């Protein structure tokens, strides 16, 4: 008896990875080549550091988003959540300033606030989605509006700014690092490595893929589907908190426009990286490539005068679509 009900799986070509793997990498390499060709400063240490550091916020969030999407979910609230957490962090730190003074304890308090708020926000999204069974799209669309309003309200329509002295003390968390590598880049790298291991080799990642693939099968396989789903949102919330910890020292402020459209950038990065939007398959390293592609497009457009700045969005959109088309070779006709 042979497997003939449907065409047998395309025999994997040994040695040469398929386009689903090569596609995003190829797109990234093309962008790098274009950047090098157009501007000699493109590969300078300063520019590379800038691009990596600014990718870190969306990147850290996108790693969490990879798990949510792999498990068949979606989170639209991460951008507003980041803004809200940043605002909350600033308020808490400013309020504690008279009592604690400028020093490590107050920074730790701020970080703890961010992590706690992130976990709580993620838990809230997750519990509404799993226990009450409301569509993730609707729950997170709702919480997106709620957090965005809350930060506007906290800031009284204006901008929340960290006390100047405190900001100066906190600043190195964004701008300094070890051996010339900035802290945001280091934290991003650590999150990516842990995420990749969790996705590839841990029970959690396997369960996420199983649930996203077919949650009925997961349930009949004695997997606690709701708990795993909830965990993906909590994990994402935690990472939003971590990203905010890196974000606040950059400009020391939060306003209604903080984190605007981050959710869409994070989702786009995840999909460019090869994770399937309807769930069932995800890869963290792909998400990293996706984030870098998005950052590099903006960077290259700023470094050159090739096109009108009015067309930046169009170029970005075209490259996103192209990166995804490049991956489709293996699926044609399927």
């Amino acid at each position, binding site marked *: 008896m042979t497997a003939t009900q449907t065409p047998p799986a395309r025999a994997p070509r040994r040695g040469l990875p398929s386009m689903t793997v090569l596609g995003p990498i190829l797109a990234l390499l093309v962008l790098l080549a274009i950047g090098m060709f157009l501007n000699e400063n493109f590969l300078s240490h300063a520019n590379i550091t800038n691009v990596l550091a600014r990718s870190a916020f969306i990147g850290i969030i996108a790693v969490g988003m990879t798990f949510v999407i792999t498990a068949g979910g979606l989170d639209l609230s991460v951008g507003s959540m980041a803004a809200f957490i940043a605002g909350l962090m600033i308020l808490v730190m400013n309020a504690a300033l008279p009592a604690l003074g400028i020093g490590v304890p107050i920074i730790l308090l701020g970080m703890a606030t961010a992590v706690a708020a992130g976990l709580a926000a993620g838990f809230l999204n997750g519990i509404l989605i799993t226990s009450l069974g409301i569509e993730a799209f609707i729950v997170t669309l709702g919480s997106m509006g709620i957090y965005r309003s809350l930060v506007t309200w906290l800031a009284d*329509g204006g901008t929340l700014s960290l006390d100047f002295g405190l900001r100066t003390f906190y600043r190195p968390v964004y701008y300094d690092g070890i051996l010339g590598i900035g802290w945001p880049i280091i934290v991003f790298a650590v999150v990516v490595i842990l995420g990749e291991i969790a996705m590839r080799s841990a029970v959690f990642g396997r369960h996420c893929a199983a649930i996203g693939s077919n949650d009925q099968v997961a349930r009949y396989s004695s997997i606690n589907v709701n708990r795993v789903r909830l965990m993906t949102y909590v994990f994402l919330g935690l990472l939003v908190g971590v990203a905010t910890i890196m974000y606040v020292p*950059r*400009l020391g402020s939060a*306003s*209604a426009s903080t984190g605007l459209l981050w959710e869409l950038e994070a989702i786009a990065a995840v999909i460019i990286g090869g994770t399937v939007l309807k769930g069932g398959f995800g890869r963290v390293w792909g998400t990293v490539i996706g984030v870098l592609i998005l950052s590099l497009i903006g960077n290259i457009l*700023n470094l050159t005068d090739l096109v009108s*700045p009015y067309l930046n969005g169009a170029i970005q959109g075209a490259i996103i679509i192209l990166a995804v088309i490049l991956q489709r070779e293996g699926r044609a006709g399927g």
Partner: protein
Amino acid sequence: MKHLMTGLALGALLAATPALAQDTKVIGVSIPAATHGWAGGMNYFAQEAVERLEATYENLDFVLATASDPAKQVSDIEDMLATRNIDALVVLPFESEPLTGPVQGVAESGAWVTVVDRGLSQEGIEDLYVAGDNPGFGRVSGEYMASKLPDGGKIVVLRGIPTTIDNERVEGFQAATEGTGIEILAMEHGNWNRDDSFTVMQDFLSKYPEIDAVWASDDDMAIGVLAAIEASGREDIQFVLGGAGMKEMVKRTMDGDAMIPANVTYPPSMIATAIEITAVGLVSNAPVSGEFIIGSVLVTPENAGQYYFPDSPF
């Protein structure tokens, strides 16, 4: 054209007008939501004006609606007309084109119409037009830039969200700097947003080894620009010129910060002015129709004290 610097002249007018016991009149106020610093300030001043005027005039009712996009603003205005039967509308249009029709509808219903900041695409609809001077904002900025760099210099420009306002400002700036030896290396949209302008400025710094000054054209963007310069450790940039008079930036000018030697006003309080004039027009017979252009003024360390409002959110 009358220049109205603040609401001071109006204050006298208000005090002279007794609260008359008449039928209650309703004023609708429709403004964009607080999505960036200046708009936040404008929201603050609108709310503050509404509260103050409601307390002053018992027979005035206000309906305040904030919209996050033009379509929402159109709906707001239609709702006001249909359900609240407004006697006057104070509107700061999100964009000129889509709002022209609905506002015209309000005017045809017989209500008083005050348009703020952004003109409609058809003339003669509004009874009163209160606005900042966008070409003037660019011109004052350009003239200052030229005076600070008498021997010429290389500058980069951060632009706002692509709109008529932004275009008028940039055109004014370019006209004022033309022939002065100031070379604009590049212009890029920072969208009146701190994070975006930080990113754009970082890339400008990578691209151009020598920059003499930056026209950030807005104080939110100036903050992002300053952070990027500070992080790069570059010493060649002499100063950054923002705009709109954010209190923190005015404070730094007042304190003599060499990087922020000046500011150019574009007061978000113009909405309060517009609401006040409209209210007065409704309750009295004072002649208030016409055009009020609130000029952009250069703020320097010498006069900064007059433009520093510590209680404002902006």
